């Protein structure tokens, strides 16, 4: 069995599972945020009216809550949703509720690794499609709709059809200025936005072994853009150290069996990868950054679960150091812990000196919520994950998805820029 199959076998108390088996898996962790939480509560209301008791959760210790999409509260409706979430966690005594303005908080998919909320080998579901992100820690992580999350909250289990696994093997180390984001954009360009539909996308090979945990998280994060059920990377010593540094006690090294089967294997040579950009209006609409060097921009956005982890900020700061931005540039660290680290290491000062605005952790403009949404005809380079029409604001705005290095290089030139071409 490969790692996904091993995890699902354990969770369903079976000796083995194969693709297409329907299994009932015990869920180790479940997450809701300020959009899916209120959505789940609507489902609870409906169930309550049908006479189903929703007064007790299966296990509140397995539940955690993030405030991320519309915080700091964008207007009164989002404020009411935050109140609802607070009442919910109080009622069910949910200890892990990361509230903005009360210490650590941030984007749900960032907290899952920053707070070591999920361990290798666990089954983790969340009310958000990018829950796939956390699979980089060696967990089975996937997003669910509100009704399914409601079900998990009440019963602690959910059924899955065991997915087939596509294995993406990266040979060799990524060249300078090429980041994990470039690799995953390249893959999505190759296989399309439904290229991984209901499959597992697993990453491995020497290039992935070489990568930091944070880089790996960028890969699994955007498996969602290829329609994958989950993204996963076998845990190793790096994973365990990363989680232990953040307070984990159960992190283990976990691999698939030697004879693990994959329905398809895709091989990439790291040395052939280049800074890559997804043009409007689809993540699969990719090309190399150099081809777009005449594209004039209005904005650079460095944020989100995809592109505002500490290493993303570090990569951007190295490029922006001593330079001045030519277009509006926003930097939004993905969590308070990352923000603090960025302050301590001088990154925030670099961004501010360059003229960028630094905002609080939030999904913000990535999902077009607030904190820098785009106006009509505005063109933005962004470290985020989606560039559908209107995703980041006005339906006639345009977003180019890129790595933090490309976003930073573009910020200081005002045009889409390959960081290798920056003087």
């Amino acid at each position, binding site marked *: 069995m490969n790692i996904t199959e091993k995890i699902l076998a354990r969770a369903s108390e079976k000796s083995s599972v194969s693709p297409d088996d*329907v299994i*009932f898996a015990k869920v180790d962790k479940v997450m809701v945020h*300020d*959009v*899916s939480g*209120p*959505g789940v509560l*609507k489902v609870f*209301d*409906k*169930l309550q009216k*049908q006479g*189903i*008791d*929703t007064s*007790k959760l*299966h296990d509140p210790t397995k539940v955690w809550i993030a405030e991320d*999409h*519309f915080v700091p509260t964008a207007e009164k*409706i*989002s404020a*009411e*949703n935050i109140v*609802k979430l607070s009442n919910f966690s109080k009622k069910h005594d949910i200890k892990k509720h990361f509230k903005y303005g009360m210490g650590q908080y941030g984007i749900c998919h960032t907290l899952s690794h920053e707070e070591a909320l999920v361990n290798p080998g666990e089954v983790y579901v969340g*009310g*958000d*499609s990018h829950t796939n992100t956390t699979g980089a820690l060696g967990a089975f992580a996937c*997003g*669910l*709709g*509100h*009704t*399914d999350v*409601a*079900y998990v909250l*009440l*019963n602690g289990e959910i*059924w899955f059809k065991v997915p087939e696994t596509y294995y993406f093997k990266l040979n060799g180390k990524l060249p300078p200025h090429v980041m994990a984001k470039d690799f995953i954009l390249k893959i999505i360009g190759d296989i399309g*936005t*439904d290229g991984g*539909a*209901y499959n597992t996308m697993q990453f491995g090979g020497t290039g992935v072994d070489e990568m930091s945990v944070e880089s790996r998280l960028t890969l699994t994060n955007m498996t969602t853009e290829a*329609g994958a*059920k989950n993204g996963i990377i076998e845990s190793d010593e790096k994973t365990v150290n990363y989680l232990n540094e953040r307070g984990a006690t159960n992190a283990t090294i976990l691999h698939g069996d030697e004879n693990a089967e994959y329905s398809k294997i895709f091989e990439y040579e790291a040395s052939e990868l280049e800074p890559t950009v997804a043009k409007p209006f*689809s993540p699969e609409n990719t090309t190399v950054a150099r081809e777009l060097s005449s594209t004039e921009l209005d904005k650079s956005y460095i944020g989100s679960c995809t592109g505002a982890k500490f290493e993303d900020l570090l990569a951007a700061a190295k490029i922006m150091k001593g330079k001045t931005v030519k277009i509006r540039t926003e930097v939004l660290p993905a969590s308070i812990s990352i923000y603090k680290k960025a302050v301590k290491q001088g990154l925030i000062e670099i961004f501010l000196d360059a003229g960028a605005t630094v905002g609080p952790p939030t999904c913000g403009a990535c*999902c*077009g*919520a607030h904190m820098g949404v785009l106006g009509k005809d505005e063109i933005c380079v962004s470290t985020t994950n*989606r560039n*559908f*029409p*209107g*995703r980041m604001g006005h*339906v006639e705005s345009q977003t180019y998805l890129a790595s933090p290095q490309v976003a930073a290089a573009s910020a200081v030139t005002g045009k889409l820029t390959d960081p290798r071409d920056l003087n």
Partner: protein
Amino acid sequence: MKPFSKINSIITPLDKANVDTDQIIPKQFLKLITKSGFGKFLFYDWRFNHDGQEKDDFILNDSHYKTSQILVTNENFGCGSSREHAVWALKDFGFDVIISPSFADIFYSNCFKNGVLPIILDIENIKKLLQFKDEIELDLESQTIIFGDESINFKIDSHRKTRLLEGLDDIDLTLKEDTKIENFEKNSSRISIFE
């Protein structure tokens, strides 16, 4: 939820691939606290101008299709965000059936939770349906679609079919026969949302 019965309806053809949930229900409507009424925001940016006036050239604004219960579309429908609001909006607008060559996984699953039948057909049949102007007959029980002189069968998971036919919207009669589930239901110390 109403049991799913035979549907006689014209088709609303939406010949687009990769329709994402941001288009189906844009972000500004996600925070609404009301439980229903998402239909008026369905495909908001496609249906309305910036001043809130309906766009004449968008099919959902054509009065001819106002009573249509069937949306026929192209590959990878419902991709992107997992927002269940997308299905709520389609259902509330009046669509009970969505026919496509393929669906995004979470969206597909969300449909069954809300009494919407997603049907996967091969691209040739999709092309024919996109062109078909008259009423079609769709029968979930026999898994057939009759249009003009043609009749095609579609596949659906039997558990999900049962749930729709019986009008049960709560997960998860899907595995109704599974003894584990039955024990689960009998075990009154556990909370269950099975019916």
